């Protein structure tokens, strides 16, 4: 029964959408390479990471169908994202403030 649901979810995506997403990914890659050439000092890393995040969310949402999946998968991703946030922020509570 659930298999039916899952199937209908992913079938909503057409070949065209996939190709469009791929094009967007390639364009974003080119932008990020170009942006890294410009000297934006500390912002370079912020810009490149933001672009990487955008690319990753495209892959997760469309290629990996998360956009069309049940809520539970989004909850799982949320748990992982939150864990990452916790691990990084607490470690950096040390790293940033070392004397």
């Amino acid at each position, binding site marked *: 029964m659930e298999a039916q649901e899952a199937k209908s979810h992913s079938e909503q995506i057409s070949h065209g959408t996939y190709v469009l997403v791929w094009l967007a990914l390639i364009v974003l890659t080119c932008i990020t390479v170009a942006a890294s050439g410009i000297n934006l000092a500390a912002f370079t890393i912020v810009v490149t990471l933001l672009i990487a995040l955008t690319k990753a969310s495209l892959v997760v949402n469309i290629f990996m169908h998360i956009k069309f999946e049940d809520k539970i998968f989004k909850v799982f991703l949320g748990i992982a994202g939150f864990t990452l946030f916790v691990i990084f922020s607490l470690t950096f509570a040390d790293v940033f*403030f*070392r004397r």
Partner: protein
Amino acid sequence: MADIAVTPEHLGHSYLENTGKRKGIAAWIFSTDHKRIGILYLISLFTFFSVGVILGILMRLEMLQPGGKLFNAQDYNALFTLHGVIMIFLFVIPGIPATLGNFFLPIQIGAKDVAFPRLNLLSWWLYVTGAIVILLSLFQHGLPDTGWTFYVPYSIRTGTDVTMAVFGVFILGFSSILTGLNFITTIHRMRAPGMTFFKMPLFVWALYATAWVQVIATPVLAITLLLIIIERVFSVGIFDPSKGGDPVLYQHLFWIYSHPAVYIMILPPMGAVSEIITTFSHRTVFGYKAIAMSSLAIAFIGYLVWGHHMFVGGISETAQFVFSLLTFLVAVPSGIKVFNWVATMYKGSIDLQPPFLYVMAFIFLFSIGGLTGLVLGSLATDVHVTATYFVVGHFHYIIFGGGVFIFFGALHYWLPKMFGRMYNKKVANWALAILFIGFNMLYFPMLVMGYEGMPRRYFTYLPQFETWQRISVVGSWILVAGLIIMLTNLIRGVFKGEKVGNNPWGGTTLEWTTSSPPPPENFEEIPVVTHEPYYHPEAAN
């Protein structure tokens, strides 16, 4: 799941009888039946537990007098390393989830098996492989001597066979991850009709929280250990200070896993305690939702406190502030659980059977462990007592006095279900009394010695500690006597015990509705759940 018919051929059979093609040991070590896998784990776990106990006894024996008369420094260092690695990674972490969890999780939610039975079997094989790899490290270049924490840079520089031991632990990590994801999927997908999340037994809730910790935390340990191997074998600069590395970052990564691992060790016992207390109080549990939610809260806050292992290790003052604060907060949900358990006894009709007595011992010992934890969470006092015997005493109170005592208690609780036979209850009570006395004699002196400044991992000590050390050594003998009596009694019960009915204790969760021992399919008919897990119709409302 519910639409699957049970064929009558299973009526009267139990999972213990071979019905398939395989015979003898092969019918067990290749079985995908969660119950058989649970038993396999049980046997392997207790084998390694015995090894760990022997190592522990030898360590204590060394402390009979100062000066390292029995072992030299190298041997003693290997002893505590192996004792730690074996007890932590081969016994307590797989612990209740792999054994009793495997056995009872599907039954308690009314399922036929876990979601991925073959993966479950693979987990056991990975466990065995990991254990063998760790044991192989004994025969290579000398026993590993880093302590179970494998702190860099010592673990990178020592000439002993750390690589092998670390690789073994790495494999065990995978076993743990697979068990965790299996349990989460099982709980999400395989609950019997009517079994909503808030009708699940609290043991299942505890396993659910634990499984999340296993899935989310273990990979961090895996990569950390892998980095040690990469650094040792390929001399890649990652943690070694001579190549610019930062050993404190290793400690961060190590404890990001290893602190939550404490909750892998203690949450399942907490779940079992909730089961046992309600069963023997013959009433419903007090504050079901609070207990269920505090399992998740503990698993979650358990992630935020790893830094308290490093208060003197070189983290910033900001980090010290944050981690100390969060550490104190994690005490609260554990406290809530204890209060709820005690409140569950209120106006109950308490039957003082061996499992319940284990729970009383647990509440006693776990309270001491938890309350000494407050001393360690407080920065001013932690600086003094950390890395001393105080810490050793504290975590043995938590993990051994808390977790492992309930492992024993839960075995006493569920053994009649698993094998359809009862152990000798009188002997069980005596064994518990001996264990309890031995335990306190062994570990309470450690708290005192720690406060007086006895650092841990010393093969010798100053003469002023001699009295306390000797009390502790004698305590270890008593404890072992208790262990032997208890295990012998249980094993005897499995084979020769008196036969008992399906529900010897008057339990209300689903496992008590099926036969003892359960049939291969767990239930003759898939149960339909209509009421709360701890519904005692005989009690007044």
